[in-house]
Each structure stands twice: as structure tokens, then as C-alpha cells.
């Protein structure tokens, strides 16, 4: 399910007090892929993704989510249909856990959407399995779990509704390496099931590992829409201008290049970097 933004503008406030947050955005988030939205704090990333499930409506222009058209005129009633299509996981979603047990928490959404108890339970169990939370934890209080486990329960709550589009805002923030690796696995799994995954991330290493497509936001505009490899091969001056980092391997390679090393292409992953260094050393031996 692709998501298309057509000349989307969004402002808070009206008239002379209005503050433009999104400026004339026309771009497409491809269906069945993982798209990373990156950009510094305040660039408009969160505002952009809140247009995908109609939490915000464009001031001008439209967002087309599959066959749903979101404009300034869209009524609240109509949004119900959209919300079933788009699962949103906000930052630190574990702060919204509330039920007595993990299973009840994950079932809550499905019951709210009118599913019967059995169907809701099955959906919850499937979602918990997908996020990799062992069944021994399902009857525990969510608050007895570790931070990383709580995060997964919260994500399962969204997945249980089986939405074709899943938006994750900084899902790995604060997780340890193991938790982050689990999350990468989960996103790749969702892609395998043909879901459209939208990821807001500050971690360029993670973007390089999982994303098929990237959108770069800067001062309310999308200034790049391309593959991570194309993006991270842009000149260093461009990254300075938009206050973004290269992946760690790219940063290290850049420092070597400042020492006089030459690489055909900028290495962007640990493996690429090690290979490039080893190759250079061998050539010169």
C-alpha cells in the first residue's frame, strides 16, 4: 500500500499567526518496503507521519493512502476507515501500557474495534509471537517486564490489528543492542509479509541496515527521496548543511580519507569498511 503526498502543506494556527511546518511536500512512500524518514529534531518528521493516519490533516494538498484521500475536508467519521489501515507506534510506546496482563493489553485494540474475545486473543498471541516475546510472559503484568520487553508488548498492540501500514517513531531509542537487533528482525519480518513500514530514525547505522528507501526532511521539506546507498554517497558538505551524520563506518572512512586514503566508493557498513581497508593495504604491500 503506497502512500502519496501531493503538494501537502501544513500549518499550525491561522492567518498572520500561522506557522508553516510542512511546505509543499510531494513524494511517495513505496508499498511493501521499509522507508526511513530522517532529519534533525524539528525538521517535520513527526508532523509528516501524523498525516498518514489522519491524526493531522493537510492544510492544503492531499495524502493518498491506498485508495483513501486525506484532505482538510476529511471528516472525523471517515477517519475510522483509515485508522484500521495504519498502525502507529509512537516514541516510548511502553508508557501507554495499562492492562493487568500482557495479553489483555495487546487484545485491547482488537476488542475496541469490535472483534470477539477469541479472535482478539488469537490476534494478540500471533502479534506477541511476531515481536518475539516468549509465552511465559503473556500472563504477567506488563510492568514486571524489562524496558525492551515492554516496548515489544506495546508494538504487539499495534500489530494485533494487522494493519497493512505500520509507522514506527524511533522504535529503537533506549534499547540495548539485543533489543535493537530484535527490532530490526521484526521490521524485516513485516516487510516479508508485504507490509509497508515507515520508520523515523536518528540512527544512520540502522537506516543503512534496514531501509529500502529514505526521505530526508529539512525545514519542513523533503529534500531527498532515494535509496540509503545513494543518500549516504552524497558529498560531506551536504550532510553538514542538513545536520545529519553518516553511518559510523562512513564517518570513519571519511577520517581515513582526510589522512590520504582513497576509496572507490564511500564504505557505509562495517563489512564494506573493513574490506576497503584490507584491499588498500594489500594493494600497497
Amino acid at each position, binding site marked *: 500500500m503506497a502512500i502519496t503526498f501531493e503538494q501537502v502543506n501544513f500549518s499550525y494556527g491561522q492567518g498572520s499567526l500561522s506557522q508553516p511546518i510542512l511546505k509543499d511536500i510531494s513524494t511517495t512512500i513505496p508499498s511493501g518496503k521499509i522507508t526511513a524518514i530522517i532529519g534533525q*529534531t524539528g525538521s517535520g518528521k513527526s508532523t509528516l507521519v501524523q498525516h498518514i493516519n489522519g491524526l493531522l490533516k493537510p492544510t492544503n494538498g492531499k495524502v493518498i493512502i491506498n485508495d483513501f484521500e486525506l484532505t482538510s475536508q476529511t471528516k472525523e467519521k471517515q477517519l475510522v476507515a483509515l485508522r484500521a489501515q495504519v498502525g502507529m507506534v509512537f516514541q516510548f510506546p511502553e508508557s501507554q501500557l495499562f492492562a493487568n496482563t500482557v495479553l489483555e493489553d495487546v487484545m485491547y485494540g482488537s476488542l475496541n474495534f469490535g472483534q470477539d474475545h477469541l479472535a482478539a486473543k488469537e490476534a494478540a498471541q500471533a502479534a506477541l509471537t511476531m515481536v518475539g516475546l516468549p509465552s511465559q510472559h503473556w500472563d504477567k503484568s506488563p510492568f*514486571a517486564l524489562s524496558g525492551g520487553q515492554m516496548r515489544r508488548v506495546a508494538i504487539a498492540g499495534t500489530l494485533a490489528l494487522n494493519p497493512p501500514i505500520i509507522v514506527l517513531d524511533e522504535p529503537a531509542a533506549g534499547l540495548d543492542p539485543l533489543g535493537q537487533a530484535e527490532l530490526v528482525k521484526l521490521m524485516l519480518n513485516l516487510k516479508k509479509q508485504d507490509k509497508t513500514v515507515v520508520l523515523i530514525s536518528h540512527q544512520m547505522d540502522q537506516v543503512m541496515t534496514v531501509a529500502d528507501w529514505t526521505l530526508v526532511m529539512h525545514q519542513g521539506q523533503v529534500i531527498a527521496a532515494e535509496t540509503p546507498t545513494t543518500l549516504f554517497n552524497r558529498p560531506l558538505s551536504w550532510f553538514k548543511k542538513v*545536520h545529519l551524520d553518516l553511518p559510523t*563506518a562512513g564517518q570513519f572512512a571519511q577520517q581515513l580519507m582526510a*589522512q590520504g586514503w582513497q576509496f572507490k566508493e564511500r564504505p557505509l557498513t562495517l563489512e564494506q569498511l573493513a574490506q576497503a581497508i584490507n584491499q588498500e593495504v594489500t594493494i600497497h604491500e
Partner: protein
Amino acid sequence: MEKAITIKNLKYQYDQNQPLFDGLNLNIEQGQWVALVGHNGSGKSTLAKLILGLLVADEGEIAVLGQTLSEDSVDEIRGQIGMVFQNPDNQFVGATVADDVAFGLENLEVPSEAMSAKIQAALEVVGMEEFTDREPHHLSGGQKQRVALASVLALEPKIIILDEATAMLDPDGRQMVQATLKKLKQLYGSELTLITITHDMDEASLADRVVVVNDGQLVMDGQPNQVFAQGATLAKIGLELPFSMQLIQRLDPRPQNYMNQQELLAWLSPLNK
């Protein structure tokens, strides 16, 4: 010199079937910067809560600067320890940055004529002196954590514990806070004991000593280079090596010991001739 923290035979369990600490021993010298590392749920934050007396041990003894932790001493001990938590948004009470730093001083009944100098000095140490009159919620995450650190510093603690204080920050914010910690160590030297609880190994590499905790056990304890030489053990308990060490493992030829990124760049330099 007295130890900053002494932990003897510490036992603690959340519920009856799951002992977390089962006879833990740990000494931390005054003036040391110790990184306490472990995955989420390894027990490192619980240990900090036990040291602060926010949780009570089932058995064993904790002493802070020579004073044994007990119901009678807990208030005094907390006065010696400053704590910065993970979520920058949960630790603000003041309407402005200065008010926020003032809050702890007011609790200590510091006279108001002495207060503004103390506030200014603490904000200067963390590089936030130009933000005195700003509202805390308008700051970035990295700035908020530095204000939280200033609030702690104003109380002149002997020990500061940072519990995953950079985990929620973006890369810029993380760098800002880490640079501030380095500055603190230079400024206060042996007067300040720093304990950073983290799972970021690049952050741990800044410390004098790395203590690795897993399932309530100390599994490694040494200088960063000693600990990072044991990558396989770290990987087994869900931790990652610092980036430079991961790269070293893939190089041929490679250095024999752990190096940080700057050292590795210097080591590689003569190979590119």
C-alpha cells in the same frame, strides 16, 4: 582513602523464585569513573537503586564513603549522591532552567544570596549558562540532560550516578552529554566519583573502569581495553563491542589490542603508503 562505594555480599530478589543479586561484591574507589554495563534487565539500574536506598537489600552491606547504608544514614547518603535518570522529560520541576537548578538548593536551605552564584557556576560547567531564563521544555534532549546534570552538580555531590542518561538522546545530544562528562572528570578529578550505567559501549570506553553485569552477576571488571579484548563473552550476554573493536576484528593485518577510533586511525595511517 575511603572507598566511594563498598558492596559486600549483596542479596536481592524481586520475587521469591528469581534472585537477582546473590552475593555481589564490588568496590569503587573515590575519583574513579566506572561504567556499569549490561543489557536491559541485567540488574544494573536495580543496583543503583539499592545504593541510593530506594530499594532495600535482602542481605549484605552497602557503604557509601565509609558510611553503612541504613534507615538512619539513608538521608545523609543520598545527600552525597547525585542521580541523573534516563528520561529528560521526567526530571523537571522549575519554570525556567535557573528555577530548576535552584529547586535542590532551596531544599537544602541555601541562603538566596549564595544561590544565584551556585546556579550560574553549575550551568557554566555544563555549558548551559546562556539558557538560564529559558523554559526547560523548549530545550533539546541533550540540553535537558545537561541541565539535569547542573541541578545535581549545584548540590556538590561526591558521587554522581547517571542511569542510561544518554539512551534517549539523538547522536548530537549524546555527544554533548559525553563531552560534558569528560569535562567534569578533568575539572573535579579525585573529588568526584562518576558511575555511568549504560549499554552503549562507546560511552563505556570513556570510563577508567568497566564493570559488566549479567543476570545480577559481575562477569567482567577491568580497564576498557581489558574488557573489550573479550568480545566473545560480551556478545554472549547481548552486548556489542565498541565500533573500533568491531572493525579491528575484521582487519588484516590488525592491532593486537583494543584501540579507540583515534588510536586506530593513527595505527592505520602508516599502512597507507
